[in-house]
């Protein structure tokens, strides 16, 4: 398979993005065609053989980021607050957990009249406008100009809001670790949320994410989003296939291409097993209401001006 970007181009773009993230360039619109265009990944599920090499590579590369909770956990109030402990189930690989940020989802569908089984690497979609980042009340989640979103385990209190607002329920919680232990562990917080950070540290060094590098079938490709979209459309056309992630939640930086329509796939879903349904732009209401905030002060000032004018007219 030929990558849509050369190794030199890839390194140049990732190093630039990483550099921008480190120095903090301030607000910057990353539009197509600019130097800061975010990176996206394409996952061609027609190529995946379900060998789980990506899963093991992810676990190896990120092992040092995994939680090491202190036990026993502090008692939390009220009693409805759930303890979520995966520290004794670190080898679970059939769903997302705080210790498994990528898993292989099995799906069946019909192609050319034949039932086929597809294996789908599932992890964070890295939304273009990620609600997990934008709605985090403490700023513990962050999005980098390279398009990846990640959770700062030093700051996260484990309230799980990011999971509640994620259309795919991606982040997973581990109790007994993180900042909440130093504040009010009984009454606020519940650990730290974990999810794929698209190997931001490897990208900063000019390396590819571990899951991409380890794949023997080159299922995944990373590059500028506009180039990845073009490649996804090309692949979809070749296999008469379908793309997921172009518009889901306003567009994501993880795109899937499948030979079977996503709404015709049958797969196991539930806790830690995200769906592949259409997703509306969850941040669209906020973006639309932002316009009201621009108009509001003008409307208020105009009303006061109108009142003043009428008063002058009445008294004249």
């Amino acid at each position, binding site marked *: 398979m030929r990558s849509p970007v050369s190794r030199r181009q890839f390194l140049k773009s990732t190093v630039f993005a990483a550099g921008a993230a480190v120095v903090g360039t301030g*607000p910057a619109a990353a539009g197509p065609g600019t130097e800061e265009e975010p990176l996206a990944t394409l996952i061609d599920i027609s190529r995946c053989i379900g060998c789980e090499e990506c899963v093991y590579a992810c676990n190896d590369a990120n092992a040092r980021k995994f939680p090491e909770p202190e036990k026993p956990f502090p008692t939390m109030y009220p009693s409805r607050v759930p303890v979520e402990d995966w520290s004794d189930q670190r080898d679970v690989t059939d769903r997302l957990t705080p210790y498994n940020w990528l898993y292989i989802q099995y799906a069946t569908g019909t192609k050319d009249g034949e039932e086929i089984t597809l294996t789908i690497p599932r992890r964070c979609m890295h939304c273009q406008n990620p609600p997990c980042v934008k709605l985090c*009340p403490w*700023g513990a989640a962050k999005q980098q100009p390279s398009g990846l979103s990640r959770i700062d385990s030093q700051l996260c209190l484990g309230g799980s809001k990011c999971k509640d607002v994620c259309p795919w329920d991606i982040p997973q919680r581990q109790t007994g670790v993180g900042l909440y232990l130093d504040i009010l562990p009984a009454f606020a917080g519940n650990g730290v949320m974990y999810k794929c950070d698209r190997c931001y540290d490897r990208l900063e060094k000019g390396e590819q994410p571990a899951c991409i590098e380890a794949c023997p079938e080159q299922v995944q490709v990373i590059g500028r989003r506009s180039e990845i979209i073009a490649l996804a459309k090309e692949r979809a056309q070749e296999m008469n296939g379908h793309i997921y992630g172009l518009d889901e939640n306003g567009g994501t930086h993880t795109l899937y291409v499948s030979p079977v329509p996503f709404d015709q796939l049958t797969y196991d879903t539930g806790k830690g097993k995200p769906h592949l349904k259409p997703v509306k732009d969850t941040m669209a209401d906020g973006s639309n209401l*932002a316009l009201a905030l621009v108009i*509001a002060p003008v409307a208020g000032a105009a009303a006061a001006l109108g009142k*003043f004018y009428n008063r002058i007219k009445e008294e004249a």
Partner: protein
Amino acid sequence: MTDYFRGRRLVYGLILFFITLSGFAQMPVFARYYISDIPGLGWLAQFYVTHAMHYIMAALLLVLGSYAAMDAVLGRKLPSAWQNRVNKGRLTATGWVKVLSLAGLMVTGCVMVVKNLSGVYFPHLLIIFLDLLHLALCMILLGATLYAGIRKRPWIAV
């Protein structure tokens, strides 16, 4: 106080109540502490609902704020005999605290609205700073409002 100023204060009170409620609902506390289990308050645990409500209340607060500020400025341009007594007065100390904290909340809030737009990246430390400053200003405003309410301190001394 005239009916006009009483009405304006009532509108401000309602906006302040709902913007504070929807603001605190941005933290995952209402579900944890059973408050969203109270019939009629389930929406407090729905983050997208409270997020939209916070924006709507912020827009109403901006309308009221710019109206009140413009009204005060223009009111002083009228001949002295036409001026309202309230417009002739000066802000009290608690009034100043409330006005400045409201202004700070409006500025930090608007910056965070921009941050929430697609394709906008703010440095991580700036986002944390904005979140904490917004919360701190809210606590100052609520503290000043409570103090003024208990000690019966008006916004403006006439």
